[in-house]
């Protein structure tokens, strides 16, 4: 056992874009589990857009980080020591943890045991975890699923949530259009995930122009991961009774002045339903979702792509690149070998 525990701390509150310098690598003494606690050896860390929101000092669904705090995140790990009756050393768990090599946890951190036979362990941070469930809640549960033949648009479609959401819409028989921030991602969406159309929004003057071209029959369902201009354009091309699952607005998190939408009168005119949601309100759906999704993955009906970054020390750089849209698929940092 190493004597020190390496961890990443939140150093400075960013204004606008996050830099690697807003976080720092530090060493702490190896923690020991107290009564009822367990020591987890962290294997994988998930990088997610919502973490940017925690860096701001404002009321949000996640508690703001304070400078000096360890960065928090979703982890997959192996129980190293346990004083907890429900967990044994050698078991694999998911938890809301921290960016560090070892964590002492109480078992209350949304912890659940993982079945390593179901799929690669890291997938529990993506398609078989909260991002997958997020896609399911927004695309199939909260507002109902798209109907066969309906026109569906998914922004950030190559991301951890977007690729699952897009494929769920395809499974419901919809015509699915995805957007992403580079040509390779757009090609991946149509070539590998089977979307009907995809575009690199950076190649267009506006989202409006791109959507007009790729959605000639309008839009019936929008799974929104980015907000801002994409949302405004989706409103402009929406059909009557269109549904908007408001999952995230990653394009806005780093702006000091958010984008001003000008097409909201469409909500009234087209009787649009817009529903914001947070996946943690829906964790009761997880067991049913996991069973279904594991089947789909095995049958090849849903594909999943992740991007592993090796080494905890590289997590801040990977996080910054993810926010800038430079990464591909679900972003995961491998902290240690399973």
């Amino acid at each position, binding site marked *: 056992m190493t004597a020190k525990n390496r961890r990443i701390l939140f150093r400075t509150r960013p204004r606008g874009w996050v830099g690697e310098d807003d976080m720092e690598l530090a060493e702490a003494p190896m923690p020991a589990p107290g009564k009822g606690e367990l020591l987890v050896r962290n294997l994988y860390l998930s990088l997610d857009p919502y973490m940017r*929101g925690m860096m701001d000092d404002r009321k*949000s*669904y996640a508690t703001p980080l304070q400078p000096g705090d360890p960065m928090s995140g979703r982890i997959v790990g192996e129980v190293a020591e346990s004083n907890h009756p429900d967990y044994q050393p050698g078991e694999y768990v998911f938890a809301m943890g921290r960016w560090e090599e070892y964590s002492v946890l109480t078992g209350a951190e949304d912890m659940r045991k993982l079945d390593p036979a179901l799929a690669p362990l890291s997938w529990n941070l993506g398609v078989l975890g909260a991002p997958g469930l997020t896609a399911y809640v927004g695309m199939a549960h909260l507002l109902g699923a798209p109907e066969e033949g309906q026109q569906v648009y998914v922004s950030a479609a190559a991301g951890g949530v977007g690729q699952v959401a897009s494929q769920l819409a395809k499974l419901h028989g919809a015509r699915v259009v995805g957007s992403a921030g580079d040509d390779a991602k757009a090609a991946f969406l149509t070539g590998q995930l089977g979307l009907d159309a995809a575009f690199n929004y950076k190649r267009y003057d506006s989202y409006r122009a791109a959507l007009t071209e790729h959605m000639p029959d309008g839009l019936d369902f929008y799974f929104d991961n980015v*907000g801002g201009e994409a*949302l405004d354009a989706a409103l402009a091309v929406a059909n*009557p009774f269109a549904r908007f699952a*408001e*999952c*995230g*607005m990653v394009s*806005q*998190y780093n702006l000091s*002045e*958010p*984008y*001003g*939408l*000008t*097409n*909201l*009168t*469409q*909500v*009234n*005119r*087209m*009787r*649009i*339903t*817009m*529903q*914001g*949601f*947070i996946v943690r*309100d829906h964790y009761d759906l997880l067991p049913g979702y996991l069973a279904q999704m594991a089947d789909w993955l095995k049958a090849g009906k849903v594909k999943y792509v992740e991007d592993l970054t090796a080494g905890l020390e590289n997590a801040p750089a990977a996080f910054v690149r993810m926010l800038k849209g430079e990464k591909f698929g679900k972003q995961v940092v491998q902290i240690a070998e399973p």
Partner: protein
Amino acid sequence: MALDNIQVIFKARPTGWVDESHFEIRAGTAGEPRAGEVLVKNLYMSVDPYMRGRMREGRSYVAGFELGKVLEAGVVGVVIESRDETMPEGTFVTGTLGWEQYSLARGKGLRKVDPKAAPLSYYLGVLGMPGMTAWVGLETIGKPQPGETVYVSAASGAVGQVVGQIAKLKGCRVTGSAGSDEKVAYIVGELGFDAGFNYRNAESLTKALREVCPDGIDVYFENVGGKMLDAVLTRVNMHARIVACGMISQYNLARPEGVHNLMTIVGNRVLMRGFIVSDHYDRLPEFEEQMIGWLGEGKLHYRETVTEGIENAPRAFIGMLKGENFGKAVVHVGDA
């Protein structure tokens, strides 16, 4: 012999604010009903914000007005000649008819109204489309619960005043905004709102909302859009509902005001839903029964601004868009 019939024609399509040059007053004649039709003497005509939408070209939820044709509006009238046995002469009716003194209509497109249950003009307001808009918006989207804070913009308008009073009857804390001190005094003093403010005087809408809704907003009944919506988005509580009824502040702008604060929709799990009252006409009997009941018990107050004469309908419409009316704006066209 055909009756003289003063009519208002849609003359030119406005791009910004509507003015009288977009209308033409014409001396026409009343038509003769054919089989299944009736001739209605129009008594009261409604002017409503949605009509501005019908003046624009392009996709909307109702067909646009046609240039050169008589404009349409909600009307209450009396059948004076009938070729539909279900609608004999003397029947009081409401429906979408013309901006004119006499309209021909298919009997099937009209709804009978009871002149004893309420003053006839009420069927254009509290017992008509605006009242039902308020009722349906709360019933199907807002779903206000006792103790929740409800905020209504354009609160002294035809829809707003009904929204606020229904929400009070449901046990909510009700707040509203309007465009004059007099209107604010009316919603608080006469309609029983818990608080209100004059948005024209407000130094900042966000600050004004913080004062009248210190516990945040659970239900926002949206009648104005733009900057007001942006301010409300900074004050929405968890699981708030935004009833997107109309966005009157935006209809006359060539470029709408930007709304920046949509991020709270995600974090606070906000529902925002647009609706059109005509999608819910199957619930009309339920609505009428409840509203006539509340009116009869004196639980609902209702105020209207009446403009005299069909030739003044354009002025009434323009004034309503500018917020010059007080309560529901109607035009008195004739007497039974």
